[in-house]
């Protein structure tokens, strides 16, 4: 980005100021975009971690269930 240098004269002073407003708007947009990107990555990662935790818990339950299930409730058995 080419930067203007401050010079005298009302028009150039105004241009210089307007340039700063433009830079501020670019900085605002860029920082908002990057911040939201970081928040999105965090949310995504956290969802992934939660999903993995849930999957591990479910498979753990599935492994634990046959041993803890009362014999009378086994599928295919009456009463």
């Amino acid at each position, binding site marked *: 980005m080419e930067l203007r240098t401050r010079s005298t004269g009302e028009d150039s002073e105004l241009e210089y100021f307007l340039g700063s407003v433009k830079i*501020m708007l670019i900085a605002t947009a*860029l*920082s908002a975009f990057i911040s939201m990107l970081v928040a999105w*990555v965090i*949310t995504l*990662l*956290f969802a992934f971690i939660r999903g993995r935790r849930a999957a591990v818990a479910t498979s753990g339950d599935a492994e634990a269930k046959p041993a803890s299930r009362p014999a009378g409730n086994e599928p295919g058995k009456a009463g």
Partner: protein
Amino acid sequence: MHEIDLLFIFQGIATLVASDPLIAAARIVLILMGIAFVYLGAKGTLEPLIMIPMGIGMSSVNAGVLYLGGSTMGTIFLNPMASEPTQLMDVLQINFLQPIYTFTFSNGLIACLVFMGIGVITDIGYMLIAPFRSMFIALWAELGTLLTFPIAVAMGLTYKEAASIAMVGSADGPMVLYTSLILAKDLFVPITIVAYLYLSLTYAGYPYLIRIMIPKHLRGIKMDPKQIPNVSSAEKMTFAVIINTLLCLLLPVAAPLFMSFFLGIIIRESGVKPFVDFISGPVLYGATFFLGLLLGVLCEAATILNPKVLLLLVLGITALLLSGIGGIIGGYIVYWTSGRSFNPVIGIAGVSCIPTTAKVAQKEAREASKFAVILPWAMGASICGVITSAIIAAVYVTLLR
């Protein structure tokens, strides 16, 4: 016996008498200000960790002026302008604080060390309670950092100087130091002094802003503790590594700051106790101590008499005030969008200054309702504030360098 010239022995007084009346007056004022800083720091009115070494540095450097051969006046503390290799090699052997200044201050290392220390005392888990909300609040709390930039340009500063003083709005000392060192080397001393002076006043000023902008019944809103997720250390480390890599990839100019901060977080979560103790103790306090001392020593009369200093004082307080207002506006927006279940006081914590603003938010909420616990959410906003500050600093440096 030779005739003894008393003024030659007491050169501090001799240089005071011989110098320009304005410089002499400024030296006396700075000596008194230094003593006042030590007193107010010890009393707890100003931040003692910075103000005590800064005050003693300030009074000593302005009292200890002597003749350095011929009629040249100076001190044997440090020469911030020495850059030519031969001159630097000379002053490194004469000025006692020159090695610390040259090898840690002028290259921004001290800012990175402070950031590493902040990382070690930060629990990134708070950030995971509501990442989008915390980031949103932190962005609003950068209102001063963004708006002060065109205001400073309108008041006569160049883009680089304006961006450096606007960073005061981020309420993050190391960030202001880092940005001004890169963008406005001539003004980095007054800018950093203004920043630290105001930051130490944040603790006293922001409660009033909260009370003016938020009615008592809203300050006492209780947050639901069930929202706090259970995150393991390994998961926190994963977050830190990935976010650090992403930010370094996007904004390499601030990579040293990002790396230092996230390295601190990773060391904390790794549980390597000797490293945690080393960084949260000697590194953090050592860096803070020398930061304060060097800032004080850099407060020479000639530096402070720069006509831009008054402007910097006005712009610095404007930036911090706007950021505080912005943070509270952000808190209000989240309050309205969350079905009025969010405590808007958390907004002030978006102005990073970790953990001071989070503590201020908790204190104000507790005063409104003794059951209001908002510290975890406030810490989350504060951590996001550190990240958004670093992002804006990097954007300014990238656009303006």
